[in-house]
């Protein structure tokens, strides 16, 4: 019985998580026939600007042969003056089977899924969840290390406002990684601590034991809202620069969900670092999204 939706990674069992990662790897090595989602209509319903995720989903949908209707950011009147349930009913009535949605408010895809007779994929909701990003991050870890279990993964920066961090924490814990969150108290309150997740303030202290460092985007608006004093003050403790790169173990990799701010959470030195995996992450995103689409429609496949 396939999962109905992918709203966050806690919708999936551990074995389903592993299956999706394996399936994505298979698609990576052997592109599937473009008929996995034949006659399946997918609507990409994005209420928030997105390039990476939007394009990645569109490519993935094409590669599995779905019929695509894309409503680019801002062009959609759905959701305005119409209840969420109305939107869901309208799209279902047109025969839409999958809605891929991004929305600035946490929980939007959950409310949509309540009324939608089909599958909802969360492409990012507010500061809550971004499950396909976390999946592609884990695929990147797996590609690098052959496993996720037992890896020490360090997430650095604006954890509080990060849907990427939240979904990664869920997925990484489920697969047995050791997770450390690093950031100042305004971006990483103690209340974010979960069982099996460590909170650290001193990035330099954790770098030597990290297998992977995931940097998160720092937004300029955090200064105006009195969350950070200055980007420079943040950089003092948390920016990954040449000096901090030398503290990393030889096998360690550095990841970023993008878009990154040069000079803020990282310096140019990171781009030249042997373990910089940003491009692989983006590339993996397409295969993960193909796997998710296939999984929701076809369930666990026994074919290669």
């Amino acid at each position, binding site marked *: 019985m396939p999962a109905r939706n992918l709203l966050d990674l806690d919708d999936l069992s551990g074995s389903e998580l592993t299956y999706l990662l394996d399936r994505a790897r298979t698609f990576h090595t052997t592109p599937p026939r473009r008929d996995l989602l034949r006659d399946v209509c997918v609507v990409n319903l994005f209420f928030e600007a997105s390039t990476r995720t939007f394009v990645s989903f569109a490519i993935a949908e094409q590669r599995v042969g779905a019929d695509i209707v894309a409503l680019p950011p801002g062009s959609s009147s759905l959701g305005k003056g119409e*209840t*969420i*349930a109305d939107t869901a009913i309208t799209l279902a009535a047109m025969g839409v089977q999958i809605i891929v949605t991004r929305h600035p*408010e*946490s*929980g*939007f895809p*959950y*409310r949509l899924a*309540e009324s939608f007779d089909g599958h909802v994929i969360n492409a990012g*909701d*507010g*500061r*809550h*969840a971004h499950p396909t990003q976390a999946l592609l991050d884990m695929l990147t870890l797996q590609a690098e290390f052959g496993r996720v279990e037992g890896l020490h993964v360090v997430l650095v920066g604006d954890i*509080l406002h990060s*849907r990427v961090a*939240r979904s990664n924490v869920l997925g990484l814990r489920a697969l047995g990684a050791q997770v450390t969150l690093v950031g100042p108290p305004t971006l990483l*309150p103690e*209340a*974010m*601590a*979960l069982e099996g997740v460590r909170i650290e303030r001193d990035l330099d202290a954790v770098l030597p034991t990290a297998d992977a460092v995931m940097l998160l985007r720092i937004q300029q608006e955090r200064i105006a809202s009195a969350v950070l004093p200055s980007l420079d003050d943040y950089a003092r403790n948390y920016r990954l620069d040449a000096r901090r790169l030398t503290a990393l173990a030889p096998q360690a990799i550095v990841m970023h969900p993008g878009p990154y701010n040069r000079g803020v959470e990282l310096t140019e030195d990171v781009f030249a670092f042997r373990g910089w995996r940003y491009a692989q992450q983006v590339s993996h995103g397409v295969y993960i999204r193909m796997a998710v689409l296939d999984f929701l429609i076809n369930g666990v496949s026994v074919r290669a």
Partner: protein
Amino acid sequence: MRSLLIRGGRVVDPSQGLDAVRDVLVRDGRLAQIAEHIEAGDAITIDASNAFVAPGFIDMHVHLREPGQTQKESIASGSAAAVAGGFTAVACMPNTEPALDSPALIAEVLRLANVAHLARVYPIGAITRGRNGQELAPYWRLRDAGAVAFSDDGSPVANPRVLRQAALYARDVPGAFISHCEDAQLKGEGVMNEGAQSMHLGLAGSPGLAEDVQVARDVLIAGDTGKLFHIAHLSTAMSVELIKFGRARGIALSCEVTPHHLQLHDDCFASFRADGKVNPPLRVEQDAAALREAVRDGTIDAFASDHAPHTLEDKAQLLSEAAVGFSGLEIAIGAYAKAIPDLPAARFVELLSCNPARILGVGGGSLRPGSPADITIFADREWRVSAASFYSRGRNTPFDGAVLPRRALVTVVAGEIAMSDGRVSPRAMLG
């Protein structure tokens, strides 16, 4: 008017230290006699065996939405909800459209309540004009028109100088200042309590601190000005401590707690629905436990439901836009009893009748002969909440479907039966 004989109930009236099985006779709208056995051949008789008979319950914190938002509630529908829930009187908050900041509006509320002819309605006037936090409302004129207290409920006066001036000016006006304590800046965009739950769900949280700092401020302003302050709907353990702090220094204060803050927590947002969205937000068990203890130890003076009716559409929006609050009048009695099952009956009646009457400075709160015959008959009988059958136009409550251990059986207002066995008097419903 026919007499009323309430037979064989356990009469609980803390105002005269009474807790015993008695007959109660009502004549001409007033309490006539309480005795072990009364014969009154001509009277309508109510069998109250296995039930409690108490001075009428007063909900000192409700929103009746009229004028301005009668799609959510009207004075008539809210009054019906009140008597259905066992309340003989309510005090209604001034956050109507327009706000209750003029004598004419206070008079209009009283007129509409009179037409509805169900519960007594005591209007609360605004502290500032238009509840805008800047200019003072005309307290003496509002009082003359019938306002029993003053509050900018929901939009607490942010400027401490304005609140201090208001309290000084109004010091000798009968009627407490009722404070909804939430600092708007600390609250920010919060849609729920700030804590592990809000962090987990990625929802903006409002910290308990937002309440605490404003309770502290208002306790100190009460001490500075000498105005009686009543702190509405406490939600945090620290607020309880701050009330004790003020009282230990001789500051005149009273306070209330809602059925929801006594027992519900911030763990009801996993579906991202707004059923549990309320101000101040539902906190954590540690806070709820402290509030229950404060009810037991006497720190908290009153139970108040913060009845805040909304349409289903208002409540179905995304969390950031969804309406704040839910209906409370028709679940209140049962929900208080559920939260603190072992609370002595006398204390229960004090919190729902004697103390609200005293704090508001209104009649009621006693069954002494000669008092107006406002009587609530209730019993420990389990029932299941069905919001769809509320008299209130607001059919939202986080208690929908819950089984509650206590309910009102009969509500008597001024000697007339306004509700019996869940049915609100049709005569009264004509309004």
